[in-house]
């Protein structure tokens, strides 16, 4: 089974929920898809070791063959190619590596070369492997790494994906082709606002989902009422507990430091299992 932990708002507790859920269930693995700032591994003692590089195909132009017809520039949705003043300009950082320019070129002036965008590392234990990706600094687009990370999901295990925040391409990639999505929110107006944005997106993706309220007690009951009105299952509420925060600041997951919380995550998983 594959479960993604996501949220529109950053800092709501995606990593907290992902790490503690992975620790609370049998036969799990954790894949941190926040390639711009992965931090799940902080809660595990084992070092992360490089597994592989990730590249995208980048076009290489044979300027002797190129007729400056402009078909590739016209095709590129990301404006990575400009034909201007009898010159062809390529802006590598705008290229998403889709390969379309190579296909569209009528004179075969384009070949592809590997452009390294980041890497994948592995850590954790044999019982609970942890994977994450790292996008190179200055690279704008993490989706190819998330795509490759997803290939490491072991069908015989419960895979927990920690999604990047937001509702843009990287979050969409993390939320699709999984069995269930946990949407983490705070009981605050900001939390609810960004939760509704994420729900708009996930309803279009079609992944079944439920909501977890983190730091319950700091705000109001608007998230509860929203979920009730929309018929969205509320999977759990994590109380705003100073002990949890203290442990967190020392890099200790709550289920390790305060075993009473394990039950909460086991129940959360049970509810998910009944829905999938």
């Amino acid at each position: 089974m594959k479960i993604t932990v996501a949220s529109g708002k950053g800092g709501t507790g995606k990593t907290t929920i992902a790490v503690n859920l992975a620790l609370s269930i049998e036969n799990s693995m954790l894949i941190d898809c926040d390639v711009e700032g992965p931090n799940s591994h902080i809660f595990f003692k084992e070092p992360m070791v490089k597994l592989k590089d990730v590249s995208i195909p980048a076009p290489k132009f044979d300027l002797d063959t190129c007729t400056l017809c402009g078909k590739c520039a016209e095709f590129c949705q990301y404006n990575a190619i400009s034909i201007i003043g009898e010159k062809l300009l390529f802006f590598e950082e705008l290229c998403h590596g889709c390969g379309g320019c190579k296909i569209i070129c009528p004179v075969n002036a384009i070949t592809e070369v590997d452009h390294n965008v980041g890497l994948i590392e592995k850590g954790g234990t044999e019982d609970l492997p942890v994977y994450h990706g790292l996008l190179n600094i200055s690279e704008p687009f993490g989706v190819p790494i998330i795509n490759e990370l997803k290939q490491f999901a072991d069908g015989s295990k419960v895979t927990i994906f920690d999604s990047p925040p937001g509702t843009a391409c990287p979050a969409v990639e993390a939320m699709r082709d999984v069995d269930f999505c946990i949407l983490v929110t705070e009981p605050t107006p900001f939390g609810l606002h960004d939760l509704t944005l994420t729900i708009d997106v996930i309803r279009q993706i079609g992944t079944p989902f439920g909501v977890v309220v983190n730091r319950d007690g700091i705000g109001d009951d608007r998230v509860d009422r929203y979920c009730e009105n929309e018929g969205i299952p509320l999977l759990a509420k994590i109380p705003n507990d100073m002990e949890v925060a203290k442990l967190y600041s020392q890099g200790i997951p709550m289920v390790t430091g305060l075993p009473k919380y394990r039950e909460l995550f086991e129940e959360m998983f049970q509810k998910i299992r009944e829905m999938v």
Partner: protein
Amino acid sequence: MKIAITAKGKELGSDIDPRFGRCGYFVIVDTDTMEFEAVINEGAMASGGAGPQAAQTVSKTGAKVLITGNVGPNAHHALEAAGIEIIAGSSGQVVDMVERYKKGELSSTTAPTVGSHAGMR
């Protein structure tokens, strides 16, 4: 000679749009006759690469000079390749800048004036 001015509207009396890649319009003015036309900036809402796209649009109009507020690195690179002279730091109405240009009061910019994605903020 044709010059391009980034503008918020389609008229000589329109305000200058300080953004290049994400301006609303390019007002193309013939400095000899003061005849003008407005070209809509199709790339204003592009998710990325608005600067190079805008440079291609300006290049196609045949303008040899661009008057704007700021240009980023990619836009600068593309305009340079097109051989278009860049005059940055402009404000006020389109017509004011055209007059100042004709009097030779404006000097060109040889480097990007802002970082990447400045027009998205």
